[in-house]
């Protein structure tokens, strides 16, 4: 076998030493540091991005909480305003109701008084007419001038009996 030829040993050993040393030096000084730098940089970038993402998420959470708080405050305020307005309207409505009712009662009373007055007047007129008519009738029928007080009394009595 060619592998066991001792004359081929020294050139192979020499070039093995040379090439292996070159490869070792290139790996040690250049290739491996470069690879490790690349991978380290990537890891750092990933870590930094993750940190940033976490802080942004935290920030978003805070903003959301603030927003919700503000919303709750505004909602409370709105409810208060609505309640206030409702109360005011209710009070106003009650007041107007009362005023209207009072006015209505007042007017009703005035109207009733007017009606009563008119009725009295009308009744008085009727009695006067009835008295005149009775005196005229008695004068025509029996030719007696009946005294006015007597006729009025009779009319009053009849009216009272009828009513």
């Amino acid at each position, binding site marked *: 076998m060619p592998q066991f030829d001792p004359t081929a040993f020294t*050139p192979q050993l020499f070039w093995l030493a040379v090439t292996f040393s070159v490869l070792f030096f290139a790996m040690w000084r250049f290739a491996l540091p470069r690879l490790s730098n690349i991978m380290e940089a990537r890891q750092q970038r990933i870590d930094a991005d993750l940190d940033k993402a976490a802080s942004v998420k935290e920030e978003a959470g805070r903003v959301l909480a603030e927003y919700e708080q503000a919303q709750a405050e505004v909602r409370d305020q709105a409810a208060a305003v609505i309640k206030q307005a409702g109360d005011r309207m209710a009070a106003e409505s009650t007041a107007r109701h009362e005023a209207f009712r009072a006015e209505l009662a007042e007017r009703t009373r005035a109207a009733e008084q007017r009606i009563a007055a008119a009725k009295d007047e009308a009744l008085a007129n009727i009695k006067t007419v009835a008295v005149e008519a009775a005196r005229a009738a008695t004068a025509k029928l029996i030719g007696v001038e009946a005294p006015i007080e007597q006729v009025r009394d009779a009319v009053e009595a009849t009216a009272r009996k009828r009513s």
Partner: protein
Amino acid sequence: MAVEGESAGHGPLAQFEIHRWISIEPFGVDLSFTNSALFMTIAVVLAIGFLMLGTRRHALVPGRWQSVAELSYEFIANMIRDNVGQDGRKYFPFIFTLFMFVFFGNMLGMVPYSFTYTSHIIVTFALAAVVFVGVTTIGFMRHGIRFLGFLMPAGIPVFMAPLIIPIEILSYFTRPVSLALRLFANMTAGHTMLKVFASFVFGLGVFGIVPLALVTALTGLEFIIAFLQAYVFTILTCVYLNDALHMH
């Protein structure tokens, strides 16, 4: 070249022959640039080119080449972390180089008409010897003379020592041999077998389809072996390094 009989022909072993292309012989020492040296150079150039060109953009989102480069980095880094631990970090460049050198050598050997330098016992043995000497030195530097306690595992009765210590010594010194032989034998056997089956293809005429199919399947298998042997060589280095750093 200096192989008897078959060297001139195209026998299964012709692919392992060393050809001196540029003769360099200072002080009578033969340092010629051979086909083996050429493929070592190609492997080194390819490995450096692959890792440097693949990563030249420093892309945050890696492209194909950069992905593969990062994959190889993490593959070896994880291997060291799992087998050696944190204090194996400083040996990372050497172990990475070892893997790349063996892996590219094995893979280049799969190219037709190429030369597989990992099929030469002297190359694999030199790599194994560097690992062995390095690991033993690290062991003594780390633990001093107590590293010899490695040969007498804790918890074994003293009267067993005469039996255990020679066995441990033998097993310790067998490590570089088995490391070198495993890679050499796998590469040599695989390539020889491919060549033998391939030589049947034309000899059998129409029935040559059978060895052809076999060679196709074996080529796939050889690719797996090319990776696997580089992996085994590297992981055993890690295991030996772990033994040296942490004892038993």
